[in-house]
């Protein structure tokens, strides 16, 4: 049965679908053309990955992935936090999380979906890449901030935490 579509007519007196599409396209032009921040999505193939029946864990390099996808995103890397590991005397300069936002239309165009636990690669320099794991997949994103004043969702905000090297080091 085909999905029933309902037109969005709110804010119709001074805002509409064409305005919405125009603003989003301008934003995408700014993000993709001017900023040009790119991340690489390593989406976990949850079907092919063989994990533990009890803990759901896999061994090192045991996770199977879909082909990586490069995505334009608005990226923020938070400051690292220098502290001891628990109550030990081991100093750990814990890297900050990565917050990134992606236009929904980009995800639609690339036919990808970013889920909790997917891995993100981000080149901090020509030689160094850092990997993160998505800890907040941005859903739901129909709050006012993500819906252009309540009209329609147009971007998704994600939070990813750095991962240990023995968990993921790229493909």
């Amino acid at each position, binding site marked *: 049965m085909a999905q029933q579509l309902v037109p969005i007519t709110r804010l119709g007196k001074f805002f509409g679908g064409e305005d919405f599409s125009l603003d989003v396209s301008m934003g995408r032009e700014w993000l993709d053309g001017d900023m040009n921040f790119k991340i690489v999505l390593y989406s976990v193939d949850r079907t092919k990955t063989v994990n533990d029946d*009890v803990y759901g864990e896999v*061994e090192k390099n045991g996770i199977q992935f879909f082909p990586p996808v490069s995505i334009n995103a608005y990226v923020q890397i938070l400051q690292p936090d220098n502290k001891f590991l628990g109550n*030990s*005397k*081991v100093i750990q300069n814990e890297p900050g999380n990565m917050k990134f936002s992606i236009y929904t239309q980009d995800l639609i165009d690339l036919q990808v979906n970013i889920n909790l636990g997917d891995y993100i690669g981000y080149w901090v320099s020509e030689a*160094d890449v850092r990997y993160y794991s998505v*800890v907040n997949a941005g859903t739901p994103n129909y709050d006012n901030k993500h819906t252009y004043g309540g009209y329609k969702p147009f971007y998704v905000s994600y939070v990813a935490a750095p991962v240990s090297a*023995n968990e993921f080091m790229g493909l």
Partner: protein
Amino acid sequence: MGLPRKQQVIPTINLKPEKILLQRREELLQYIKEDGTYLPKSLMHPDLDRGFLDFVKEDLKTIVAGSIIPMIDIIITTQNWSQFTQTWNFSDLNDNPEPPFITVVRQPEVKYGSNPAIMYNIPNRKEYFYAAVPSWNGNIKGLDIYKIPQPVPVDITYNVKIVCNRMRELNEFNKNVIQTFASRQAYRKINGHYIPIIMGNISDESVVELEKRRFYIQNYEFTMLGFLMDENEFEVAPAVSRVMNYTEINAQTTLPKRKKFPENKDTFQLSVTIPANATTKQLNVDYTGDFITQGQINIDSYDVYINNDFYGTDVTLIQVNTNDILRFEVVKKTVGDEAILQYGIKLL
């Protein structure tokens, strides 16, 4: 008290070692190489810490998926560079130690020990006999008495932490710990001493915040019931020295004859001879007894004086005492010949 059995009696004691001088020194060196010195090895804080690190590294070695979980093989102190020297080979791209790994944290304070075997002592650090060691300087064979003070008990608390991001690693390490401490305590041989280690509390310090990197940190608390033994307090003092004395003796094997003495007689014969040219004879008597006349030769008559007192004429019995002076005055039958009075003396 029963006598020792015959085979336990050592018939001879070898007072002189078979090897002396250089050979003896080489022999002593061999002893040292084989079994160490006679004295126990010193046991101080660094020894106990090293021993505990070795205990974790060897006795609690954990292997998951064919790989040994690495361990930071030092007690991390205030000098931060030391951490990097031990973790560089399993650091990640951010130079942080990469899980999984194990680290040992020692609580800086070391408390007076609670080991009941040694916690109650005679005060004032008295030194006690430890061993008597034979010594030989080439001339004198003696003993050295080794004395050491009673060790001081200490309790050192260690926190062994495993940092990892898989439950399997936690399980494997936990299994090793629980099996090792199935009897609540385990032992580590440190410098030749068996030191008990008691397992304490197990707690969790895992980072499970919502939007942070997640990993497990589990803390295992152990208390080492150690003791301190300072080799600078050992004392070696000479004890008994055995001195060899030589005595020259006659090697004759025949038995000596018993010396014979005359019997103690209480009667004997006495002849009083008056020379040819005299008519008087004086005797100093040194005994008490009776002079009994038994015969006379060339005597017509005689007078007897004791201590110049007239005693009698031709008396046949004269009683004398010790130190008396007895004098005979005789009338000879033939003047010019000697005369003899014969007496039997009976001592009283």
